[in-house]
């Protein structure tokens, strides 16, 4: 169930440290994030990936298109705000369309020991704190879930990361990584296999694997890699659920990294007013 919210391309959480004004083409030609010729390790790759996450982020328009196994397609539009505070993320999302659900808002907060979610239903004009599910559920009934987006960046709260070697995806050099959650991690996956772009430390491909095999496959369109406010991200990403046959596509437009987002956007008693 979509108790929670927020779909943003994982690349959006990454930031390029160099060449903030480079074009997409320039991004493709930019030097690797790690020192040339240096042997990559799990630590260097993770360090590169984590360093790219901005403290504050605003997506003026996020379009999530979900295609059912039978071909039926639905589209939702939303605005999204992200803030990182002491290493923990807070995400607020306001649904813009369809019109009947406009105003529905979600707040997802990563706490020290658990996550919490708040939902605002405009027709009832009330906020409820939701427990018992949350980050595992698809955002806006899509295949993107908050936890998937965390994990695709190797951001398990605990666990280990393995560097598996190098490879290429769509002609781009990638590091092959294996992210394994810690025992206490509330996830159904045994591990995530990710291909991380060597230039931008952006995950281009990821397989979410459980004991029975690949559950979901994440892919970022390499051609859509772009930059805004010094943040490199892929404008088009998709998530394929191999079990259900559903797939979701996300398109990010107008991504910004503002210096100061109002704090009330992330407060349970005011997050829904931000729209």
């Amino acid at each position, binding site marked *: 169930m979509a108790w929670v919210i927020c779909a943003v391309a994982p690349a959006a959480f990454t930031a390029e440290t160099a060449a903030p004004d480079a074009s997409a083409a320039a991004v493709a030609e930019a030097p690797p994030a790690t020192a040339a010729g240096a042997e990559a390790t799990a630590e260097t790759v993770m360090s590169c990936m984590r360093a790219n996450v901005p403290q504050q982020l605003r997506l003026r328009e996020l379009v999530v298109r979900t295609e059912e196994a039978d071909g039926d397609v639905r589209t939702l539009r939303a605005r999204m705000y992200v803030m990182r505070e002491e290493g923990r993320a807070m995400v607020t999302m306001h649904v813009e369309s369809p019109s*009947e659900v406009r105003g529905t808002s979600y707040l997802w907060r990563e706490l020290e020991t658990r996550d919490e979610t708040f*939902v605002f*239903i405009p027709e009832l004009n009330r906020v*409820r704190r*939701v427990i*018992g599910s949350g980050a595992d559920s698809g955002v806006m*009934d899509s295949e993107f879930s908050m936890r998937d987006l965390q994990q695709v960046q190797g951001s398990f709260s605990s666990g280990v990361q393995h560097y598996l070697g190098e490879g290429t995806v769509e002609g781009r050099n990638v590091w092959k990584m294996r992210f394994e959650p810690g025992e206490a991690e509330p996830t159904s996956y045994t591990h995530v296999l990710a291909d991380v772009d060597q230039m931008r430390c952006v995950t281009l491909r990821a397989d979410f694997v459980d004991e029975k095999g690949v559950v979901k496959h994440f892919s970022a369109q390499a051609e859509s890699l772009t930059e805004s406010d010094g943040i490199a991200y892929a404008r088009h990403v998709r998530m394929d659920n191999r079990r259900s046959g559903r797939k979701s596509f996300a398109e990010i437009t107008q991504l910004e990294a503002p210096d100061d987002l109002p704090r009330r956007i992330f407060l349970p008693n005011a997050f829904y007013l931000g729209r």
Partner: protein
Amino acid sequence: MMRWLNALLSRPRVVIAVATLVSALAALTIVLNREDGGPLLRVDASFEALIPGESEEGRVMDRLEQFFGASEPLLAIVHAEPLFAAETLRAIADAHDQIAQLPGVANVTSLASAPNLLFNEPDDPTLDVGSVTQQLARNPEQLARVRNSAARNPMLAGVLFNADTDTAAFVITPEEGAAEGGGTELDMVALAQRISEILSDTEGLEQPAVTGNALISAATSDAVWTGLIRTLPVAVVLVVALLALSFRSTLVVVLGSMSIGVSLLVMWAVGAVADLSLNMVTAIAPPVVVAFGIMFSIHMVSEWLRHSVGEDTRLARRAVGAVAVPLLLNGLTTSIGLAALGLSPLPAVREFALLTVTGVVSLTILSVSYLPALLLLMGSHIGQQKLPGEGIAAKAARWLATFDIRWRRHLVVLGAVVVVIGLIMAQRVEPGSAYVENFADNAPVRMDYNRINQQLGGAATISVLLETPLDHVLLDPGVATAVDDFVQWARSQPEIGAVASYVDHVKVLNAAMQPEVDGALVYPDSARLARQLVNFGGTDAVRGLIDPRQRHARLTIRITVDHSSRIRDLAKRMERQLNALPPALQASVTGTPVMAAYTVDRIVDRQWLSVGAALVAIFLVLLALFLSMRAALIAMLPNLLPVSVYFGLLGITGIGLNPATSLVACLVIGVAVDDTIHFLARFNAEARARGSEGAAVSHALRTILRPVTLTTAALCLSFGVFALSPLSSHTEFGLLAALALFVAWLTDIFITPALGSMVRIVTLWDLLRVDLGQSPQYTVPLLTGLSNRQARLFALTARYETVPAGTDIMREGEVSADICVVVDGQLEVWVTRNGQRKVLNCLFRGATLGEAGYFGQKRTATVTAKGETRILRFDANDLERLRRRHPRIAALVLRNLNRIQAERLAHATAMLR
């Protein structure tokens, strides 16, 4: 045709080579047509095999699968007392996790996964969307609250647990396609087995039971296969023993079996090309073809041994010639009966018709070609022994002939009364087929099904598909309330155990967001709120109940009944109730059990059509054969009797007309008429030759009693072994078919002779055999104006005699009413005067003589054959019979007779002058 048979018998090795080649090609076809690595015989006992592909119900079902997927879930239950205890719920959660990890499982829904949204207290700002097990794990002291909230939640109570019986359910959705295809049924059985093991091994959980359409299909496939490998060999062994006992020749048995084997291969190859699989109905085809094969073999071998053929090609031609036409007719009528099943609405029955007609046609051809060729080649090893039982048959035939003729009117009336009673009782025949009750009481699949039915409330699932033309209409409060009214009505029906509806989900969401609102769950009062709730609640929880655009919904209904008639009644009631829904809503009751029930329902209408078509087709064959409407009707009567007894039995016993039992009537019609034809044809020949009906009945019975009894015994044994099948529908089919065939045998030895003795019949092959020489209508004055066919019919109504030279055909002074016509040869007419023989005249082809006797005068002269002479002899009775049966021919013959008389009178007058 005889030329063909002669040609075949003169080249037995070529015939055998061709048959061997055909067998090899058939075997090759079977191997090439099987799926990669698949079995040579594919078993598909799913419901779908019995359901027409193209029908309104089928289209609704297709749409349901299109919107909500084709995977049919497995339903597992466990008993745990008390159910709402921390340990029990932990055990359920453990079992849930283990089942979810099983390969082939796409999703599991249970108390460990379904959200319990009604857990929160009215003043609690938090909404706990966890499952019952998660809530209890978080709030171990809140057991009563968890239990009460779950009991109030219509998405859980009755659906995932039954508090009255301390039963918890697991709904396991297999991965898409896991239940499709040949080999995966076994996967489903293995999956169910693993689920059962997990549930058994989980401490605190007891008495696991698993059911599901795929499992029942798999069990049915297993039973079909078990039934086939059990019945086919037993049928073969029994019949082979019967053959061996009857002919006391192992070689005869082997040769007979070889032609049956070739027919089975051909049938199997046609099935492979048509991509047919063995299902509950087509699995009956192989033993049926074996039974027919034995019948054909018995007729041929009996005639072969009766003629003591050995290696004599001339005798072989005679033996085959004597039996070929009846055998071809047998094949034709049996095929007609079976082909009439092609009118059935059930694909499986139509497939059965295709297989058995193929088998019977090949058996017919092989019986008059391949089998005689084998017998001829092996003739020196067969011997020429007297057939055992012939003496008993002769004695029995004599007794039967006396009995039948003495009591013929009583027997005919008795037969007519039985037919009428049977037809009256047939009015009570109801369509009816049970899927699970088809298994024995102690079959695991039935026991599990029944336990789930009793403890959870409903083990089979049907659906109501709701369709609207616009997005989100289903969330409109007016529409949703009407749907909810239907759901409440459905829950009150005795056949319904549980209903799951998207309306309940929205009501629960509404209550969860406003816990302070007391009382019963209510639907949101605005469509906008409903959409926001559903958007928040997501579609995962209701993915199988409503589509993301809220245009299509499915009400999932668990039913407690298995019999098609009860499912049909329920579906009809539901359809009437659904008519009360708003016009914007199109609602259809569907689901495999409903489709099967409607299809079985149509069996009755189509059954009469099939039986009617078979009777009409066979009547036309008999009409063409006997060349008389009356004779054809008489020949039909004995065949109506076993069929009416069969339908009467269905009506009396309450056995439903199901896909298997619907085969019996057409099958029996096709078989029963064979024996009637055998008897009437033989009786006709004997009656013509002997001029005595009593003697003709006796001799005809003597000739046919043994083979007809043997074939009936073989057929009854073959069908009787279906009693060994694990499926009750097969048992019913076998016993009913055996009983009907036994009644057909009784009819053919009691009623048919009684009827036959009342009428003399001319058969087509009699007609073909009559040789009246060239252009009889121009060369025989009595036959002037008749066509060749009419002349032959007249000849067959009369007695056709070949008279040796020197035989007196008439004697002067004797009283006799016969008239004779010379067909060929020469007769001398003479009188004795003063002790001297005076020849008056010589008569040749075309001459008519004896008219004086016909008009009551004594013979005025003696007539003697000068050489071998063929004559037609008839009397007033023959002319009267001709008048009744063929009035046009009788009119012409009488006109010609008058003309002959007039000419003769004129000639006599002229001589006197």
